[in-house]
């Protein structure tokens, strides 16, 4: 993966990528006010006096938002700073009622951590420099009136975590893998819903290029890119643009850029010279944030098993690495599968069944796993019926179809529809004798050396048994009968 190179006229270029991910903290209330945070509410219906920056209003930190950020930090093995502080970032804009954003520049809540990613066969560790907590801004709406802009302050003051990576990524696919992994961790922890379409997670993409082995080049920052695919596209475009500029004798300007999802290109928003002087200083309305050991212990104790650990555990249970990865990619799948295991299902068989039968069926009926008509308990029962030989693979498929339609338990379906598999050797031997008697030509050919016809006899026997014969028993008895 580190061999991703842009082929230029002057040789190969390496791409250096760092991501600043803004993740909306899952919390009922905003970072410093009691206002609600639900997505899609009527404009300006979730705005407190504090969010609107009325005179004399004061921020008070929301403990739950701090807790979620600390848990996130713990999930990426980061240093948690027991002493941190909020700073004001000052600038004027109509979506920023206070005239400053409360953020953390000098003393962030979370320090150094890391995220392990897999890109193809390679495993790589991406450094995380820091996570700090800050307020989101409101939203300007320019399409509501021919000459006026409107402001929706519902998002104003909502808590964000800014997760700042080291410039450790070297290709668009690494950046994609990092974002997907980070999203999975946030969703496992429950600190962010990771919903990029609704803006719960967005990334500022820092890109520079260099000849391999040389110093870092000048970087640009592409703001607010809101899907994994767009992030990868923005990197690819931006890296190629930079190579073109450099190879035609130009210089990269340190600047902020915007990504256009329709064209897949970036354009300049403002250069460093136009950059704001944010006049950061400690927010005098807030005391430093001091975390005690009991709070940290509670945060740690409340962390769920995280994707990497879960995957390793699955593999140790005999699940294939591929299945383990698929089952742990989304927290809802992993939760469903864990319940299935808790119900007593055999891990390897269960993993094959979930990734094959269940995923196929859900895909076909257009539902995700949280809406599955079959519960983990019912699935465990079905798998148990296969394991103890009551159902053959094909009978199990039939039963599963009925389960999807009716939501009934498999035992009930087997009972009602008589779909039980039989291992009754007497009955099977009788059918085999009949099949051999009815197909003398095939029998002669088989005995003459055409052993591939064995499958034909299995098929005939199973057909005659109505599909309910235990295939293993059929095999054994047929071999004996055919000599």
């Amino acid at each position, binding site marked *: 993966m580190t061999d991703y190179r842009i082929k230029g006229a002057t040789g190969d270029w390496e791409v250096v990528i760092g991501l600043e991910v803004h993740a909306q903290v899952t919390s009922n209330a905003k970072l410093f006010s009691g206002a609600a945070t639900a997505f899609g509410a009527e404009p300006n219906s979730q705005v407190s006096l504090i969010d609107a920056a009325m005179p004399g209003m004061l921020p*008070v930190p929301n403990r739950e938002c701090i807790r979620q950020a600390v848990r996130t930090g713990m999930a990426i093995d980061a240093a948690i700073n027991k002493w941190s502080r909020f700073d004001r970032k*000052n600038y004027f804009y109509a979506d920023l009622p206070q005239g400053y954003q409360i953020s953390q520049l000098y003393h962030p809540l979370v320090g150094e951590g890391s995220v392990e990613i897999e890109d193809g066969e390679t495993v790589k560790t991406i450094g995380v420099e820091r996570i700090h907590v800050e307020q989101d801004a409101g939203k300007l709406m320019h399409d509501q009136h021919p000459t006026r802009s409107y402001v929706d302050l519902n998002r104003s003051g909502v808590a964000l975590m800014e997760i700042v990576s080291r410039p450790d990524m070297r290709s668009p696919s690494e950046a994609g893998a990092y974002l997907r992994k980070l999203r999975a961790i946030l969703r496992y922890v429950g600190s962010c819903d990771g919903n990029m379409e609704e803006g719960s997670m967005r990334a500022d993409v820092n890109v520079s290029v260099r000849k391999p082995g040389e110093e870092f080049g000048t970087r640009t920052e592409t703001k607010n890119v809101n899907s994994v695919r767009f992030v990868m596209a923005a990197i690819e475009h931006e890296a190629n643009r930079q190579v073109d500029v450099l190879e035609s004798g130009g210089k990269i300007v340190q600047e902020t850029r915007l990504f256009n999802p329709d064209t897949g290109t970036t354009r300049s928003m403002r250069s460093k010279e136009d950059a704001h*002087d944010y*006049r950061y200083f400690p927010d005098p309305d807030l005391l430093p944030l001091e975390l005690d050991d009991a709070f940290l212990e509670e945060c740690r104790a409340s962390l769920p098993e995280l994707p990497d650990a879960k995957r390793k555990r699955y593999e140790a249970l005999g699940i294939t690495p591929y299945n383990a990865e698929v089952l742990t990619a989304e927290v809802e799948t992993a939760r469903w599968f864990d319940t299935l295991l808790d119900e007593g299902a055999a891990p390897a068989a269960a993993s094959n069944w979930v990734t094959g039968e269940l995923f196929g069926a859900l895909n076909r009926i257009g539902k995700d796993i949280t809406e599955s008509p079959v519960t983990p308990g019912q699935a465990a029962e079905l798998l148990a019926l296969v394991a103890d030989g009551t159902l053959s693979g094909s009978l199990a498929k039939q039963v599963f179809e009925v389960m999807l339609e009716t939501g009934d338990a498999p035992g009930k379906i087997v009972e009602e529809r008589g779909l039980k598999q039989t291992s009754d050797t007497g009955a099977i031997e009788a059918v085999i004798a009949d099949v051999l008697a009815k197909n003398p030509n095939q029998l002669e050919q088989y005995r003459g050396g055409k052993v591939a016809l064995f499958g034909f006899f299995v098929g005939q026997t199973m057909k005659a048994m109505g599909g309910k014969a235990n295939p293993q028993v059929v095999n054994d008895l047929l071999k004996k009968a055919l000599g």
Partner: protein
Amino acid sequence: MTDLTDLGIREIRDGVRDGTFSAREVAESFNAAVSNARQLNAFLVETPDHALAAADAADAVRAAGETLKPLAGVPIGMKDLFCTKGVTSTAASHILEGFTPQYESAVSQRLWDAGAGMLGKLNMDQFAMGSSNETSAFGNVISPWRRNDGGNAPLAPGGSSGGSSAAVSARLCPGATGTDTGGSIRQPAAFTGISGIKPTYGRCSRWGTIAFASSLDQAGPMARDVRDCAIMLEAMSGFDPKDATSLDVPVPQWEQGLNASLAGKRVGIPREYRVDNMPEEIEALWQRGIEWVKDAGAEVVEVSLPHTKYALPAYYIIAPAEASSNLARYDGVRYGQRDLPEGANLQAMYAATRAAGFGEEVKRRILIGTYVLSAGFYDAYFTQASKVRTLIARDFENAWESCDVLLTPTAPSAAFGLGEKSDDPLAMYLNDVFTVPSSLAGLPAMSVPGGLDKHGLPLGLQFIGKALDEQGVLNAALAIEERAGFTARPQAWW
């Protein structure tokens, strides 16, 4: 009978309780005094109905034989920095002209909950920035005091709580709220011959008080004597979960704890407060103060606060820095004044609104604050000033090893004439030289009248106490009050 407006808070409270007079009579008397004193320009808004409603409630409680609240029947003045529900609250700035809050500040709510009523909103220096009340967008307050030289030069009532000081000393209200960022309660109290205390930072909630400099702003009472300050401060103080810097500590019963004996107490005299060019009269008053505390039983010790000379420069970096950010919200977008020139874009609207809405002194401090926070200057100014602040707090900590309370003059001069210093911001800033250090350290400090200068103008003495030791400050001030025998009051010319 005596004029009811001559009565202080305790006398009104007790009189209403004992049935000597009704709360309504009191409110009507003060309402009349307020409306007869418009020449002073002390009130920006008069709210006679608010005062009457509170009075009637008090009278009804008494008639029903129920227990009266601590401030039942006491009408007060409210500095216009406090947001009051349904009553315009402007911080004496055009930029908030007509702004009517939908909420009540924590401090004013506590006062109403204690039974007080409001006579009106008091004029002040714009956004509490000033020491003379001349920065108000709605005209300066004129002190009720006049020099005894026969001239009629209008004098400054001090600032920024100049409407409060003028109204209390002119007997337009028995007590008023003030706020103190660098001396805005104590200096105007000294200029007008009344008492005023700035409690420990965090005692009074800042919620709903229009911010000047958040790490320094603190509300407090201004009244005619020490006991009245104690009564009012008790009602104003208390933990507020809506202010993250509010102190979660019990409110002592300061009135009950008053004790003018200073036996066993050590009063510190900081030698660095002997500034150059201090008028002899101030020096003499300070000396008298020393004799009085000795007479009250205190031991007087000289102490050193070596970083005092850096306090004023540090203050005039930190306070404007915070103000430059705190005042960013006045942008014409959501409330208050908006100036929208033809064809203006957002930036032009901000510029026009703020140019027209803010006064000169406010603009000056926003510019200073923006400068000291800007890239390249932050470390040299703001970081350095923050370190000085720490050293100043440490100076006081060291002083407490040898004394319990500090005695200093409140201001380096008596009230000056209106217009005398308004062209020279630095001369104006020097007014805060004795009050600023305790503000930077967040300590309780109080001004109490000590005497008159040769022109017959009041002079104040200041006590600075340990954090949370308002009682020690009040008691020391009470000892002075009992010995100074200050009875002077302005002759009504309005």
